[in-house]
């Protein structure tokens, strides 16, 4: 199933003009606050009527202003997870979860225990929303949306209201959903870390316009997108496979640029990971460095250079099919004669990959 969105909407001085596709997997709508992300999601859910537009899922239109088609929210079957869980206070967790099942066509009663299990909600079922923590509420809200048997899941910053430990509690569940459900998930976020962990497709919004859209790894590694994402947050996502747990507490992973070692990762040999490597954590050398404390030296070729206005330069590296970003100074670019096609070694400290930017594989 693929969700196709094309919207034009004006309110006040703000104009939203967005067209994109969300295939199965997580499509992250990323942008600063006020870039129009929530407007898009509300229009998809049917809570906001845009001036012009067409929204369809697998060719079935939900909204088409040309033919004056506008399905009301309850006929769209979009599972919406709000930032503020919005659980029904007069119902138990079990009843909240079952709420959408009641209205859903061909829902199965066996789904509830399965989803409750997937989200770790079993012990919470008889409780009332008022007694749940923020993270628990959000998990119930996610389960409730899934059990309404939706054609697509909409998540509007579902983690924004939670503190870091709660976020860390929910992220693995979201990864499991992404990998186990064949649904398009439209995920609104302004956190690069969340996007890097979850997104398979990335749509960058800036001032109501789509400035880039495509596979998440490609968009994130596009130096032209750095101003939108923020320089400090610039970085690429690479995939890695766990090869071995070594005796000194490090885990060895295989990437397309060679082996790397990271502090112990949970998981079995053979497990896949997505690693977000920040551009500012990558050093470059034109010959293989020796006598250096950094353990990870990856072989890559310079793909593109992006010189900014300041003293810095952003360099896109290719390792096999994957892309890595490095931020160095312009002086180093000149001193090392870096230019497209030059083979380099990318150096990465084992401890510089933050635990929260290591996610399960898509």
């Amino acid at each position, binding site marked *: 199933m693929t969700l196709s969105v094309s919207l034009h909407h004006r309110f006040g001085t703000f104009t939203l003009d967005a067209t994109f596709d969300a295939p199965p997997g997580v499509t992250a709508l990323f942008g600063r606050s006020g870039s129009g992300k929530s407007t898009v999601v509300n229009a998809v*859910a*049917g*809570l906001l009527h845009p001036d012009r537009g067409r929204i369809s899922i697998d060719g079935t239109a939900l909204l088409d202003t040309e033919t004056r088609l506008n399905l*009301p*929210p*309850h006929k*769209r*079957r*979009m*599972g*919406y997870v*709000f930032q*503020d869980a*919005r*659980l*029904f*206070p*007069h119902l138990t967790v079990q009843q909240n979860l079952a*709420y*959408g099942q*009641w*209205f*859903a066509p061909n829902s199965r009663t066996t789904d509830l225990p399965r989803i409750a299990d997937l989200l770790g909600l079993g012990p919470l079922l008889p409780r*009332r*929303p*008022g*007694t749940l923590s923020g993270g628990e509420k959000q998990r119930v809200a996610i389960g*409730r*949306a899934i059990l*309404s048997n939706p054609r697509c899941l*909409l998540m509007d910053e579902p983690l924004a209201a939670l503190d870091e430990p709660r976020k860390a509690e929910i992220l693995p569940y979201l990864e499991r959903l992404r990998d186990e459900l064949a649904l398009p998930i439209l995920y609104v976020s302004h956190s690069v870390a969340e996007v890097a962990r979850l997104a398979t497709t990335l749509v960058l919004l800036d001032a109501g316009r789509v400035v880039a859209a495509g596979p998440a790894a490609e968009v994130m590694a596009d130096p032209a997108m750095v101003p939108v994402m923020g320089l400090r947050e610039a970085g690429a996502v690479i995939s890695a496979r766990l090869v071995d747990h070594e005796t000194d507490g490090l885990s060895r992973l295989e990437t397309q640029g060679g082996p790397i070692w990271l502090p112990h990762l949970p998981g079995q040999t053979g497990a896949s990971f997505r690693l977000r490597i920040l551009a500012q954590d990558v050093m470059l050398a034109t010959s293989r460095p020796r006598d250096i404390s950094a353990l990870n030296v990856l072989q890559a070729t310079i793909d593109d250079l992006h010189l900014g206005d300041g003293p810095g330069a952003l360099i896109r590296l290719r390792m096999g099919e994957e892309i890595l970003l490095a931020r160095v100074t312009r002086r180093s670019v000149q001193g090392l004669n870096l230019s497209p096609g030059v083979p380099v070694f990318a150096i990465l400290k084992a401890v510089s990959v933050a635990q929260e930017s290591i996610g399960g594989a898509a």
Partner: protein
Amino acid sequence: MFDALSPDEWRAVTLSLRVSLWASVLSLPFGLLTAYALARWNFWGRQVLNGLVHLPLILPPVVTGYLLLLTFGRRGAVGQLLDQWFGVVLAFRWTGAVLAAAVMAFPLMVRAIRLAIEAVDPKLEQAASTLGASRFWVFVTVTLPLILPGILAGTILAFAKAMGEFGATITFVSNIPGQTQTLPSAIYAFLQVPGGDGQAMRLVVVAITVAMAALFLSEWVARAVARRISGQ
């Protein structure tokens, strides 16, 4: 207590209870609809409706009673039609007392329910609609349970107000023992005759008891329901 009241007094008490019960139950659907319209709908004449609903609260009750008589009396526009088409006569009947009590209690009921509806977060209703509930089902499964304390409070308040209604009732349906003589009318009548103070006093005690019981009941029910829907 049964022996404590004379048959006349007893008739006044039971009539008042019956009138108040019917008045509060029959006006509930209208009160709910009016409260919902005032709280949620934007329509032309909303302020006019709001004013009309509150009019009995502000007007002298005798004026409300007189207007009822003009409208629903045998020669009144509506009264004539009711008489001819359905054979229903309200003026000087206990059913008329129900109408008078209902009209007088209506603003209190609408206010209580309207406040409850305005306290419901529309975001919860939006969430229900994205989960597949049509507007009707959103109302039944989300709005209605959440405003239940307000509905109960409004109904019991209307009942208590109806128990005490005097001016409009006596103007519209007079003060006929056994037919339209409600508790307040009976107290008034006893106070008009020499030596009626004792009888009036007994009815005063009954009036106070019923009013207090209604208040306690409404508090208790509202608290129980509020606890249930607070999500604790």
